[in-house]
């Protein structure tokens, strides 16, 4: 083989980034199919593309879970790593993609918008997201972040006839570019100090004591800010409600879960690999210098403390006065970001496990909720006001029950996944002595319970004031809803399995070196 021609080992790439490769290749394939498939009926074409996308995601999940999960040689070219943590998050995002794809088939049909670009963008968005969490290279992070973001800008703006969708997308775009610029500034600085972009090498480079030098802190702050934007942590959350409200419902579900998972995943990865490295508990810790392991704790911990608290507080508080259910769920997603941040602040294994579990659980319940929302909507923005939900409980009992289940899960009540997830993150924080944060956090979740319950009482306890006709329920959506509902209940009652996997995953963060 000529080394010049082939700068890397393709097989190794396939091993490490198989999921991404499947998605990218499949994305290209989808473009082809979209152009070639000359079926007259747009609907049929859309449906086929949709199912194809679902299949692609299923294949991706299967591949990642079966092969990449058990890898030993996990880092490829110092750019991508297939550590269990990244793969876990990647699987969450692929699941989110699959569920969203399932729902999109029905959603797009209801909205008479069967363009294939949707699925292409969805696939690339997930590919970008997976690339993001897999990358251990800051430049690659930026690039994949942009791949994901651009795809999502496109998805958010997908309702071309809706000014809301376009406006949301534009806001997202403008602020997103701003956020990316901040992130990039930080990345550039890191590059400047260390001469490298690989996060493990960065960690090694700064382990000699430059931890607390001002420029590095500045770079750290800028990276935090850039990622907080994607995580929607207060005060970088302002775009969330507008974009979530404007974007197509299923896309909102996707944004609230996959994008959030990607952001949290990469944040934790950067934090716990570069800035506050954790040591391998088994295996061999390559990273020898343990002196400064927690030198940055006093910097980022208060930041996340406040960020988590403010997110929980403002997210829940502002959700109270919302009348649009999507906007309400958007605020609630801010609050959930806050809860997850509580898990990060604990900075212990339980906390990271908790965050991973939370991401998974949140994916299930949030996508499920948006699925119900879009069905009740019929056509986007037709019935999104809370008043439209009056009496739904008797008009559409199953839908209402499902929505109640998801909302109850989000409110964090047993026996749902939401409760266990909250339990995990809060118990991790309490373990580290963050009683006050935990107490304030649970109090804000009381506010949260109020607005979730409000939807439930609208559905079950109020007389309807106008006749809401739900949209058609497509079979794939039913599948997705069943999966999410069962998942929410299953994880609520038997969380141990997923939690132990997540625990394995978070432990692998120490193994990236």
């Amino acid at each position, binding site marked *: 083989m000529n080394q010049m021609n082939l*700068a890397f080992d393709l097989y190794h790439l396939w091993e490490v980034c198989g999921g991404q490769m499947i998605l990218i290749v499949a994305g290209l394939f989808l473009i082809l199919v979209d152009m070639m498939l000359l079926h007259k009926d747009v609907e049929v074409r859309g449906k086929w593309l949709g199912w194809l996308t679902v299949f692609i995601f299923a294949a991706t999940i299967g591949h990642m879970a079966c092969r990449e999960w058990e890898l030993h040689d996990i880092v490829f070219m110092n750019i991508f790593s297939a550590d269990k943590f990244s793969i876990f998050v990647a699987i969450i995002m692929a699941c989110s993609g699959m569920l969203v794809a399932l729902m999109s088939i029905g959603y797009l049909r209801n909205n008479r918008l069967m363009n294939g670009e949707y699925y292409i963008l969805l696939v690339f968005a997930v590919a970008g997201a997976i690339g993001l969490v897999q990358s251990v290279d800051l430049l690659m992070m930026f690039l994949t972040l942009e*791949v994901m973001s651009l795809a999502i800008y496109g998805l958010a703006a997908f309702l071309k006839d809706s000014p809301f969708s376009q406006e949301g997308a534009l806001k997202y775009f403008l602020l997103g570019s701003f956020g990316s610029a901040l992130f990039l500034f930080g990345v550039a600085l890191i590059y*400047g100090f260390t*001469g490298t972009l690989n996060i493990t090498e960065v960690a090694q480079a700064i382990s000699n004591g430059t931890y607390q030098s*001002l420029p590095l802190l500045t770079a750290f702050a800028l990276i935090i800010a850039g990622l907080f934007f994607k995580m929607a942590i207060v005060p970088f959350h302002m775009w969330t409600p507008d974009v979530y409200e404007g974007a197509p419902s299923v896309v909102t579900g996707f944004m609230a879960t996959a994008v959030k998972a990607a952001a949290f995943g990469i944040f934790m990865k950067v934090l716990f690999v570069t800035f506050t490295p954790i040591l391998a508990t088994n295996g061999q810790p390559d990273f020898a210098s343990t002196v400064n392991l927690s030198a940055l704790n006093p910097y980022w911990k208060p930041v996340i403390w406040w960020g988590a608290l403010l997110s929980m507080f403002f997210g829940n508080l502002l959700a109270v006065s919302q009348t649009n259910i999507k906007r309400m769920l958007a605020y609630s997603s801010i609050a959930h970001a806050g809860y997850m941040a509580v898990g990060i602040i604990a900075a212990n294994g339980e906390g990271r496990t908790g965050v991973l579990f939370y991401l998974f659980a949140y994916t299930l319940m949030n996508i499920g909720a948006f699925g119900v929302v879009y069905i009740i909507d019929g056509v986007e923005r037709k019935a999104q006001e809370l008043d439209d939900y009056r009496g739904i409980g008797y008009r559409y009992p199953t839908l209402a029950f499902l929505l109640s289940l998801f909302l109850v899960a989000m409110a964090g009540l047993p026996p749902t996944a939401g409760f266990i997830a909250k339990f995990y993150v809060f118990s991790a924080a309490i373990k580290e002595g963050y009683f006050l944060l935990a107490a304030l956090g649970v109090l804000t979740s009381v506010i949260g319970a109020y607005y979730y319950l409000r939807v439930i009482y609208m559905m079950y306890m109020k007389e309807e004031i106008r006749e809401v006709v739900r949209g058609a329920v497509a079979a794939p959506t039913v599948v997705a809803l069943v999966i999410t509902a069962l998942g929410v209940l299953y994880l609520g009652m038997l969380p141990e399995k997923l939690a132990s996997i997540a625990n394995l995953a978070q432990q692998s963060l120490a193994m990236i070196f």
Partner: protein
Amino acid sequence: MDYYFLLFAIMAVGAGIFTITVKDALPSALGLLTVFIALAALYLHLHAPLIAIFQVSIYAGAILVLVVFVIMLLITPDEALETAQKNISYRAMGAILGVYLIALLIIGLKGINQLVAQKSLPEGFGKPSQIGDLFFRKYILHFEISSVLLLVALVAAIYLAKKRA
């Protein structure tokens, strides 16, 4: 004193200020163009000829032209578009925050020259061939991904721009 740097630095800052203060979008674009050119000059100074060329060709030549094109497309002459926020305090707040950010960044990055490794440049540093070499060795994956990035942008842009199917 490095007059070359000083000249283009002042030019870049001045043009930048012009860009963000001028009333209409078109002159603003021209201001940005000036910034780009000034930066390109600095790139040359920093042994990055290829970047400088790309700066002029891609940025000024492609991106900015695209922007100008859209400006022409979107702004009909009869539409009087206020350029800046009417509310002075709003503008002042933005400016103050921005200045504050600049100050903080400068303070925060004080002493960066001790951190950044300072090596003497090897022979032929910044030659395009080196870049090409890196592109296809170390940065091949980035390259691939950026192609995906452009593809995604393309798909999104085409979808949004095309007439409804």
